[in-house]
Structures are given as C-alpha cells and as structure tokens.
C-alpha cells in the first residue's frame, strides 16, 4: 500500500493525516514502519531529524499502535510498541499534561481502567474542565458497558462546552444506542444550529425523526432530507431518505394528510436516484433498485 513512495512523501502523508485528524491507524503504522526502514533508522524517533515533527509523529503512531492491538506486547516483543513510544515521549517531556493524557489512553488500551481514571482525575484536579480528560472518562464508562454513566458524564460536559461538536456527536450516538431517539434528536438540533450547512447532521436528524415515526416527525424529517438533497445533490442517502419519508407519508396511516408536494418529492427522489444509478452503479444494482421501487410501490398501496 505504501511501497512506491519516497520517505519524504510518506512523511508528508503522515503530516496530512495529523492535520486532518483522520483515524487511519493501520495506514499510519505501515507508513511509520516504512519510513523507519526506508531511512535505515534504529528507531522511529531517529528517523525524524526535525524535532518538532518527531514528537508529533511519536504521539500519532502511539495512538495508531493502540488502535491496532500494539498496546500489549506481541510475540517476540518485551514491551509493546505503544508503551515504548509513550515512554520516549515521557522521557523527553516529563511534566507534560499532553503526555499524561496519552499515558491514560495507553492504560485504557491495556484495559487498566483504574490507572487511566487516576491519571485523568489528576488532570482534572489541575484543570477542572479539562476537555479531553472528561471525555476520556466518559468513554471508559462506555468501554465498560455502562452507557447511562457515560451519557451522564458527557451530558454534563456539553452543558458547559456547547461548541464541542465531537462531544455532541458522541452523545447522540450513545442516546441512539439506548433507543433514546428524543434526546438524540436534541443533540442533532444543536449540531444543526452550529453547522447548518453540513448535510450529515440534517440527514441523521431526519433519520432519527423517521425512526420516531409520528406525522409531525415525518414531516419534519422530510424537510431536513430535502435540505440535505439541496446542500449535497446526488447523495444517495439523502435521496433515499426523502423517498422513504414521502413513501411513509403516502401510506394508509396518514391518508387524511396527503398533499401534492409529497407525491412530487417522492417522484423527484425516485427519478434522481434512477438517474444516479444509471450513471454510476453497476447494472445488477440498477436492476435491484428498480425492482425494489416497484415492489415497494405495490405494498404501500392507496
């Protein structure tokens, strides 16, 4: 996957992944290994002469290592890759809170909840609203299967850190996993308010509303799906969502509230999807789409 690139290209790729905050842990590990052997360096740290870059990379690779089962020693290792890197960072930055946080994450990856919690509590004693430490504590509850506690920690956190989108998204997922669609919807409302042009939140909000199912929810879902279609044309998920919502509104259950706009939007979604599939999807997929539409038209009869 990374074979044909030069060392500097690979370093640039690592840097790009850091800047865009992507979680591509396998790729990061492969790049790190390739860079180290490409330079003939005896350690990853030694492969980066630029000091500023070196420590960022060690932190990035340590996290990737934790993601890929390298938090505990594998066969032939005395110490895990992640532990080695964290140790090197701790030696270079002994008083650092950033390293302490990483050490906490390592404990988490090793399943040492008590050790991790202790470090996060130390960070919180020093900085009462330390964002990362609070969020990691919430996630420890999640890892241990205690979703209600995770929710309560995170819900308290977002009350005072309302601009933290990542936290709102995680909170919405926790609510969804509990089937608490009402509260998940509230999270999406917050996210839409602060990111009105992001189609993702409109789509997820619409999907949550559809799942809740009443007439008002479906009508509101339709609005948000339509908005998503407008912001991001030719997105299959928005178009299908629009179709499903209109289809539900056209059903027997809501016969009294039928409107022409519903039929128009449904027809619009179907036609756009067929166009999209004709242009981009394989023949069997297009065929399946057509079949599915005809079958569904039969079941939602008027």
């Amino acid at each position: 996957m990374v074979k044909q690139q030069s060392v500097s290209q690979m370093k640039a790729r690592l840097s790009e992944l850091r800047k865009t905050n992507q979680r591509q842990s396998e790729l990061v590990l492969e790049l790190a290994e390739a860079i180290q052997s490409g330079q003939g360096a005896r350690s990853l740290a030694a492969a980066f002469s630029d000091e500023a870059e070196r420590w960022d990379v060690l932190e990035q690779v340590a996290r990737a290592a934790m993601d890929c089962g390298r938090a505990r020693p594998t066969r032939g290792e005395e110490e895990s890759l992640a532990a080695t890197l964290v140790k090197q960072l701790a030696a270079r930055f002994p008083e650092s809170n950033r390293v302490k946080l990483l050490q906490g994450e390592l404990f988490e990856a090793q399943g040492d909840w008590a050790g991790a919690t202790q470090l996060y509590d130390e960070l919180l004693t020093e900085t009462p609203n330390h964002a990362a430490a609070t969020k990691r504590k919430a996630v420890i509850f999640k890892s241990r299967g205690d979703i209600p506690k995770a929710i309560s920690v995170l819900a308290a956190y977002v009350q005072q850190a309302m601009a933290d989108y990542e936290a709102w998204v995680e909170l919405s997922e926790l609510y969804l996993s509990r089937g608490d669609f009402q509260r998940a919807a509230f999270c999406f409302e917050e996210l839409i308010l602060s990111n009105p042009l992001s189609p993702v939140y409109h789509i997820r909000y619409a999907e949550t509303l559809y799942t809740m199912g009443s007439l008002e929810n479906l009508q509101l879902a339709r609005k948000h799906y339509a908005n998503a279609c407008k912001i991001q044309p030719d997105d299959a998920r928005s178009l299908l969502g629009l179709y499903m919502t209109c289809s539900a509104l056209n059903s027997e259950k809501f016969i009294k509230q039928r409107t022409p706009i519903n039929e128009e939007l449904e027809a619009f979604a179907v036609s756009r999807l067929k166009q999209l599939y004709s242009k981009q999807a394989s023949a069997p997929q297009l065929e399946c789409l057509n079949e599915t539409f005809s079958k569904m038209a039969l079941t939602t009869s008027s």
Partner: protein
Amino acid sequence: MHGFCSDVVPTLERTSNIWTRSPFEERFTFQVRLHSSTMRTVQLARDAYAKIILHAARFPSSGVNGILLGTPIDASTAGSSKRDFKVTDAIPLFHSQLNLAPMLEFALHAVYAYAQKHQLSIVGYYQASETIGSGSITGLAQVVGDRIRALFPDAVVFMVDNRSIDHQEGNLALNPFIHTGSAWRQEAESSNELRLSPIDPETPKFVVDHIKRKTFRDIVDFQTHLEDVSLDWLNPKLFS
C-alpha cells in the same frame, strides 16, 4: 411441548427425550409422527461466514450488521428435518447508527427483492458489537430477527463473538441465537436445538488468511454503497 412436529419419522440416532418406549408411547407414535427433537441443522457457507468476519474487521471500532441469505435444505434427504437450511451468503449493511430506521428498512426491501429474484430466502441477521462485550443479543438484533422470522420462521441471529475473532481456537467466532417461540436464546454450536456446521472445514483458516491479506479493506456494505453507488454491496469479486 417437546418434539412434536408433523412430518418426520423418528430417528433414534438423534438426541431424544424419549428413550424408554413405554406402551403408552408406542401407541402414541402411530397417531403423531414424532420428531425426536426440535433440532435444526444450519449449514454455513465459507464465503458467507468470511464476509461477516471481514465486515467486522473492516470497521473495528464500530458495531456492524447485515443480513443472511440462504436456502432450505431438501427435506427429503435422509436425516434432515423440514427446518434445516443453508446460509449461502451474507450481505453487509451498516457500520454506524445501526438502529436508525429508514436506511435499514430500505436495505431490507432491497435485499429481499434481490433474494426473491435469485430464489433465495432471508434466513437471518448478524451483528458485531462495538465493544468486546459478551456477544449477547441486542434489542436491535431481536427486532430485526423478529421481522425476518415473520417470513422465515426458523431464522437465526448470529452475534459475532468479538473475543474469538482471532480464530486461535479454530472455532467459528459466532454466538448463534434461535427463537424458542417466546424469546431469542443463545445456543451452543451443537446442542439439542441447533447444529451449526461450516460446509467447508477449512473455513476458519480461510478467514484468518483473508484477514492477514487485508481483504477486508475491499468489503463494501450498504452504507458504503450509499456513499458511492458504484460500489456493490453484493461484493461479487471479494474473494477472487
């Protein structure tokens, strides 16, 4: 009520609750043809199982789910019951927000349309949880399982056993669930009610090999397809 099912002649080699043939039982067997247990055999195709595990491997930090397709096994074959079936394929569906309804509903319709066209049935559902966990059945799995049972009463739910996904023991990394009539219940791979058997004995090895080769990078689920419709959730060329 144990073991009364209309069609199959008693087979004493199966585990039976009725070993002692009392005079009462002798008479009874003439009136009601006795199936010695409610056992069903579920055969599992190698590629179907591999797709389940590779789907989970593709998204290691998320829960994933999908549909199982299959066919009944010919009931006239000796030793088989009307309830036996083969899982021939797995259709990966989602890797986030698993219990949001609209896309799940559409996906079920689409997979059903595909299945009908190819003389297949939807025979079950699989899910891998986000955390290592216990592999116990979730609310969503029960709801989808119930939906599938409406059309295929002997449907199974497979919860992936995240703990044994490295296949070091050489067993299938699955917790199979069947419906007892009132609830979903976990069965061992071989019990009085269920025999889950891979058709190809090399199935675990095959999966480990494909994990090592990172084949999971190429697996497409319904959600990925929605992001780019040129990708096919049927995964026709995954193992070639």
